């Protein structure tokens, strides 16, 4: 869709499996922004996010042979690596110690900055507008599950909804996102 694909996924994977430097360059150019966005949202600290992005790419490079394209897209696989490393970091003891030193005020300023997306990827602005139309509760749900790695039980507790309803609610949120993205395509299709 709107990602900056410079090369078909299969070819990227085969370059990576051959440990070809061009594979790394393509990987970094295409995916570092999205992965960095995910990591930053979880750890909310520039220094940690830089380290974690580095760890993520090293892990992708080392473990590319474990990636199985029949089980999902390369991005889903990489996103899981980035997310798990970031969640581990946030839950680790040294992270909790250091984040306690940040004052409330600093935290708020950081978050406001983050909301303004000062670092945002220029290429993703059009897409951002589409995603901004998502209902706040759907956006929050996607962020909890997709970014923060909440389990269904944790979502159920957070929202006070029965466990059985969580799956339906998540499906609705993803469905709404999909509808908005295909709305973008309809605009294009209307011209013909």
């Amino acid at each position, binding site marked *: 869709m709107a990602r900056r694909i410079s*090369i078909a996924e299969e070819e990227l994977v085969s370059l990576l499996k051959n440990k070809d430097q*061009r594979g790394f360059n393509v990987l970094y150019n295409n995916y570092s922004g999205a992965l960095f*966005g995910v990591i930053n949202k979880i750890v909310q600290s520039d220094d940690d996010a830089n380290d974690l992005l580095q760890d993520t790419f*090293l892990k992708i490079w080392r473990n590319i042979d474990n990636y199985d394209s029949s089980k999902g897209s390369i991005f889903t696989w990489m996103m899981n690596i980035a997310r798990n490393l970031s969640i581990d970091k946030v839950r680790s003891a040294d992270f909790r110690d250091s984040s306690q030193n940040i004052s409330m005020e600093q935290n708020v300023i950081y978050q406001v900055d983050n909301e303004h997306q000062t670092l945002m990827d220029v290429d993703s602005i059009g*897409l951002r507008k589409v995603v901004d139309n998502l209902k706040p509760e759907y956006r929050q749900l996607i962020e909890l599950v997709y970014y923060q790695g909440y389990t269904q039980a944790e979502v159920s507790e957070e929202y006070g909804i029965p466990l059985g309803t969580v799956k339906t609610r998540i499906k609705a949120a993803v469905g709404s996102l*999909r509808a908005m993205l295909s709305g973008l395509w309809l605009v294009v299709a209307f*011209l013909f």
Partner: protein
Amino acid sequence: MNIQEYIASGVLESYVLGLASEKEVAEVEQFALQYPEIKAEIRAIEDALESYAFANAQTPPAGLEDKIWAQIEAESNEKQTKVLDFESGKEIDLDEKKPPKLTGFYGSYLRIAASVALLGSLLANIYFASQWKEAKSNLSLAVNENIKLQKDIKSQEGMMKPSEVSLIMDPQIKMSKLVGQKGSENSTVMLAWDTKTNKVYVVRGNLPTPPAGMQYQLWAIVDDKPVDAGVFDIKNNTQELKKVPPAKAFAVTLEKQGGSPVPTSDIMAMGI
């Protein structure tokens, strides 16, 4: 199994989001192999979530890419040289291949002589049998190798040439991927647009072969109007089409050979 009900259950969303149980994961993976609709649905969910992540992308600090590459190189230099088996790519432990030491044999000369003769004959039998077996397996290995090489050559036909890779890695090139519409959802067309010269290239047009007398035509959407960007064929090579102004989106239609001044067919693929 009712596929629509399965899709409606929300289990595929759980799968992509990493929320599914081990049992569900195994089941989804099994069904994805069996039913193309389920595989397509998983891909659509992945695409939507991927777009969400891209909408929230942030540019990492400059210089981080070089730093990470330096780290990767440093790591691969640290590793010792290993002997790899050419066929399997697995590491060979050189110590393991030493033959076991033979132990002696005692007894009277006659017994020794008789036994040596018998042993000799047995060994010869074993030797010839194993030779025959080896020859047989070598033959089948050679046949397999031949098949594999033919497959390799086939798959290489679709690989990009170095000149194509350098085109798409050029910083002044903007890439976009068009996705197939109704009837050819798995098709993709990769485009490269030169931000300096305004030339547009079809890097890979992976669409069904058009009927005789027909050709695919690319349209650039500029000021909400389709602008003819030229026709292209389905082949494993990059094709240079026309110059077009910066476009909001691209679309592909199927037109008569040589193209049409205005689009006349349904959209076969589109993207931004």
